């Protein structure tokens, strides 16, 4: 975490710690930030339509919501009292990882190693469970929930035996102890695996698989890119 002490006229007004990657962001923080995804998309639309004032208002709120949700030691209400140029600078300097961070293959979750598997070598039962549970997620754009589901299914030992209760227990464990890099990477590599399966052997299931693929888009990465471009535009003025 990177610590910032914000001052105004030499007086300390706020101390916050900002994450340096998904490994320092929890599931709950990501879900909180995700609530404001629509605001960034609306801002982009306003900007494209030439409604610059509305676009600026929405992007300021969206960036401030994102910084306050993913950081520690600060609330949105505290942050919006800070001159916006300071928040904009923090976002430009320290949140580039939202759109550029690469997924990883190996993690430690509460002392236990979790490696992203070769999904095609794992059991057919695990695959069946993933595809079914993904369908049950109400908000299909939230990559935290998608990654959580995939990681919870493959974060197990021994032979496959369908056990939804055990999967739910592992979900709670991962929510508590795994950072977003685990969930992001699980979703990313599973999505890649689906694409590979679809190309090589699932021609008759193409429609169904492609529907699942569309749900595995990393929406907050897109959000980061939108906001980052807008923040840079403001910095140029």
């Amino acid at each position, binding site marked *: 975490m990177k610590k910032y002490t914000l001052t105004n006229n030499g007086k300390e007004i706020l101390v916050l710690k900002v994450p340096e990657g998904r490994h320092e962001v929890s599931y709950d923080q990501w879900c909180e930030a995700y609530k404001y995804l629509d605001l960034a998309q609306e801002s982009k639309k306003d900007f494209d339509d030439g409604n610059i004032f509305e676009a600026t208002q929405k992007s300021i709120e969206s960036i401030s919501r994102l910084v306050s949700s993913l950081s520690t030691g600060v609330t949105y209400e505290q942050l919006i009292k800070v001159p916006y140029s300071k928040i904009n600078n923090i976002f430009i300097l320290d949140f580039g990882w939202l759109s550029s961070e690469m997924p990883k293959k190996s993690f430690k979750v509460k002392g236990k190693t979790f490696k992203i598997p070769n*999904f*095609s*070598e*794992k*059991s*057919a*039962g*695990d*695959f*069946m*469970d993933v*595809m*079914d549970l993904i*369908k049950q997620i109400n908000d299909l754009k939230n990559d935290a929930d998608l990654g959580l589901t995939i990681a919870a299914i493959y974060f197990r030992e021994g*032979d*496959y*035996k*369908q056990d939804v209760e055990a999967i739910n227990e592992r979900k709670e464990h991962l929510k508590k102890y795994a950072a977003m890099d685990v969930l992001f990477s699980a979703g990313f590599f599973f999505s890649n695996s689906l694409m590979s*399966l679809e190309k090589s*052997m*699932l*021609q*008759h299931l193409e429609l*169904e698989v492609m529907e699942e693929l569309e749900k595995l888009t990393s929406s907050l990465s897109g959000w980061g890119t939108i906001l980052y471009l807008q923040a840079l535009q403001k910095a140029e003025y």
Partner: protein
Amino acid sequence: MGYYPLFASVAESGVLTNYMSDKTNIEQILNLPLSEVMSVVEWKKAEEV
């Protein structure tokens, strides 16, 4: 489960008994690697056509 019928049909078809005589019920098939089961699904589909 959406894929259960698909994998169950592999078990019921007895296709796997041709080369895996002990893999004939759905529980055993669900424990096989996905790539192996999908290969059989593809082969079975091709046979039907």
